[in-house]
């Protein structure tokens, strides 16, 4: 965030919110910082797109910006792409703070111009190469990157459209784009459970459950399909997770009680044990803090499942989820927000799991869901959206929640989807 934006943000915070939300002139000429005040999403008008596959590009851009929950998309009716200088007052009268003018160039690039309506000027121009084939997976990902760039220009925060989610469906791993498109099985991952992204967005670790019940940690290169399996002396190996720098793979292993182990994901070293019992204790579902210094995990060391935090070397385990909330002694499946501030988890309420998050500063608890059974939270890279498994539609599906507005949307349409894992931002060339 720029110094100017910070200054503006402070000013906005000092204003009575009622005054601010009614007096839109206060926002004039300012383009950053609005989104953190609820209800003040800047309007973005997306003009009709010109060039090849224009309708698809327009649809993807509009949907991405809508799903991002930081701007209010003003629908572009079908029509011709505008040429020449924009008539800014018209867009202002439509409530637009910004206008997005996109075209697909003859050379095959996505050319995006973002206009500042109040300032009557061009804010940003970007050109994103569109890979062949048109409308294919990589092509769509490139358009999503365009959406994320628009969101960065308009709100100051990069979008999360150019991401994917891994999940478990029909006994293997599946992958789906952030907008629900391109859902397909990842071949060769039969028996796969608990997928976890490598921070480079190119590899995944998961637990491979064989028909014998033996479980093996597998690291797989998503593009090439190369795999590495980790041998341990235990039959149960599960819940893999990468450290934020990608240098460490933590997972759970044991024959009775289970402990958390760590190993170099691409090396030949033996895993080293981090957590130590006590006794036949189940320690499960580890996840690193964004600074890599701590690990949140589920443990039944008090006789029932709760979420704990320990140092990344296994020392100083500390109960995170006290029994002050929920009515059943069961909390599990933590995921640490990318900004480091919150740990999301699932907690039983009236015997049914719901998604909650605990603020690490004041230990305040937010409850996000109430409809159906809601489990397995996974943060988006923006630290604002959560992917989770829900039965609210009647079958187990992945849903996305905006933790600021409470808005939810269904990501998958194939019954039985679960164990979702939201990728990091998938940068070009990766």
């Amino acid at each position: 965030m720029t110094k100017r934006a910070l200054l503006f943000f402070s000013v906005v915070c000092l204003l009575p919110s009622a005054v601010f939300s009614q007096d839109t002139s206060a926002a004039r000429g300012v383009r950053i910082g609005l989104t953190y005040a609820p209800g003040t999403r800047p309007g973005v008008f997306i003009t009709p797109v010109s060039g090849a596959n224009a309708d698809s590009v327009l649809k993807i851009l509009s949907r991405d910006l809508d799903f991002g929950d930081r701007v209010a998309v003003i629908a572009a009716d079908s029509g011709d792409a505008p040429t020449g200088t924009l008539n800014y007052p018209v867009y202002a009268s439509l409530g637009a703070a910004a206008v997005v003018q996109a075209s697909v160039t003859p050379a095959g690039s996505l050319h995006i111009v973002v206009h500042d309506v109040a300032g009557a000027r061009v804010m940003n121009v970007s050109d994103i190469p569109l890979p062949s084939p048109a409308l294919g997976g990589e092509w769509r990902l490139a358009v999503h990157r365009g959406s994320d760039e628009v969101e960065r220009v308009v709100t100051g925060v990069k979008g999360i459209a150019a991401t994917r989610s891994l999940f478990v469906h029909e006994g293997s791993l599946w992958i789906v784009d952030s907008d629900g498109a391109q859902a397909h099985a990842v071949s060769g991952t039969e028996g796969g459970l608990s997928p976890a992204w490598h921070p480079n967005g190119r590899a995944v670790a998961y637990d491979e459950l064989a028909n014998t019940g033996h479980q093996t940690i597998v690291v797989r290169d998503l593009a090439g399909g190369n795999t590495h399996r980790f041998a341990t002396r235990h039959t149960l190996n599960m819940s893999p997770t990468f450290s934020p720098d990608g240098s460490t793979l933590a997972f759970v292993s044991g024959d009775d009680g289970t402990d958390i182990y760590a190993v170099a994901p691409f090396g030949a070293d033996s895993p080293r044990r981090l957590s130590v019992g006590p006794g036949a204790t189940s320690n499960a579902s580890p996840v690193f803090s964004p600074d890599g210094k701590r690990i949140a995990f589920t443990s039944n060391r008090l006789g029932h499942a709760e979420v704990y935090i320990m140092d990344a070397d296994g020392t100083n385990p500390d109960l995170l989820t006290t029994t002050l909330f929920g009515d059943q002694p069961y909390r599990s499946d933590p995921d640490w927000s990318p900004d480091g501030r919150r740990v999301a988890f699932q907690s039983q309420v009236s015997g049914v799991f719901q998604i909650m998050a605990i603020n690490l500063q004041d230990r305040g608890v937010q409850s996000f869901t109430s409809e159906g059974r809601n489990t397995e939270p996974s943060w988006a890279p923006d630290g604002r959206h959560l992917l989770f498994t829900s039965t609210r539609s009647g079958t187990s599906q992945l849903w996305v929640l905006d933790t600021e507005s409470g808005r939810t949307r269904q990501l998958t349409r194939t019954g039985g989807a679960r164990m979702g894992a939201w990728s990091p931002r998938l940068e070009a060339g990766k």
Partner: protein
Amino acid sequence: MFASRRSVAAIALTIFVVTACKKKPEPAPAPTPAPVAAAPVAPRVNQDSIDAARRAADAAAARAAADAEARRAAAEAASVRSMLAAKVYFDLDKDEIRDDAKATLDAKVGILNLNTAVRIRIAGHTDDRGSDEYNLALGQRRAASVQRYLVSRGIAASRFEMVSFGKERPAAQGENEGAWSQNRRGEFEIIAGGDMLRMPK
């Protein structure tokens, strides 16, 4: 001569039955009519055909006896196998061996003591209410808990392998206690030495 042939056949039958008792039951082979070629007396066509008929009858009797023994052994093995496979059940989120499970496991102890080559894979399962990942850990504790009990009854720990399926392989479908209680279970699979299972007397 008849007597001696009969006694040879009887001995052959005895040997066969004894062998059948010891060996894994197999389709009864035709008893060896060894004395025919060695017969020292002049051939008498009529008498030979009568002998052949008697031998065939003896062989059929032997086969029938062997079949009966094979059926008995197979039934015994099946009964042993079913006792070894009998599931045990657990309380919600618990790995403690319940009293009803102890009776089921005690029945396996005698079998395992008698059939020393048998190795068992114990698979822990859970109902579908808990966390998917935590359930995998809970299932493993259940399998280990079963093993500890059997080891406490004198069976070598090395004869068991413990795995967990968590909630991934439900035995019963449904969101009710009936289904849940069927799914919180330990299952047993023979992974070695299951060929000649005998029932303790």
